[in-house]
């Protein structure tokens, strides 16, 4: 059976999660990208999903460590070291 030389919208959509997770092989990735380059409806969905994922990761990356946690960790390290002496 020959490999497809292009993906339909449905075939692209089925691979969107894996594409977002950078989990597709190079051949599938190229076919998804070729479809996204020519289909504005699918590209719009992809851009939106990418935006949601980037926002989630950005917010997690910028979460501030509470001062109370820093203090707890400092105390934990101090007490562990005291116990070793």
């Amino acid at each position, binding site marked *: 059976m020959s490999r497809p030389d292009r993906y339909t919208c449905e075939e692209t959509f089925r691979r969107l*999660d*894996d594409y977002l*997770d*950078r*989990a597709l092989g190079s051949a599938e990735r190229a076919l998804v990208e070729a479809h996204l380059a020519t289909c504005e409806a699918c590209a*719009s*969905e992809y*851009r*939106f*999903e*990418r*935006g*949601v*994922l980037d*926002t*989630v*990761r950005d*917010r*997690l*990356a*910028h*979460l*501030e*460590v*509470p001062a*109370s*946690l*820093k203090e*707890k*960790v400092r105390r*934990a*390290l101090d*007490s*562990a*070291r005291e116990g070793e002496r």
Partner: protein
Amino acid sequence: MDGAAGRLDELLDPVLAPAYAFALSLARNQADAEDLVQEAALLATRHFATYEQGSNFRSWFLRIVLNVFRGRLRTARRRPVPVELGDAPELFLYGKAAELGLLGSHPDPAAAILGRIDGETVTAAIAALPEGYREVAALAFVEELSYPEIAAMLGIPVGTVRSRLHRARHRLQQLLWSHAVERGLVATAVPEPTA
């Protein structure tokens, strides 16, 4: 402070933030998240000799956080077996953007919906996922690990990671929406046209 202790301090300082984000995504509240990281720091001090110098300390420390979390689940006599998540609708927030008339009219519809969301809202949404899904989502979103890396860390098949992460992401969109609406962080009505 001796050399090893000083070295641990140096390594620990930059990973506290991701460790806290990871713990908050697992533990469902700030106090429990802080306790998880505190206990992990204590264990890291005791077992620092087992850390292979030059290897990925962040990964080593987050594994300790994960093990502490799992240990507490066992202590509470709760098995860390995931509840079935069911099929959450795909493109949930995209549908909301369409309802709000943001598609086509806004340069960045995702930002228009989630722009005001904060880190606590995101961790609360991840923490609301069932066990199993929560661990996979936290490792994928906080650590940006690949499917095989998550599978190795959790001791589950790659295919399970993949299906759980896909389902978790779809459900997460529903949870983000409801948390954000609850906190007044998103507009829930179609914006009035400007005169």
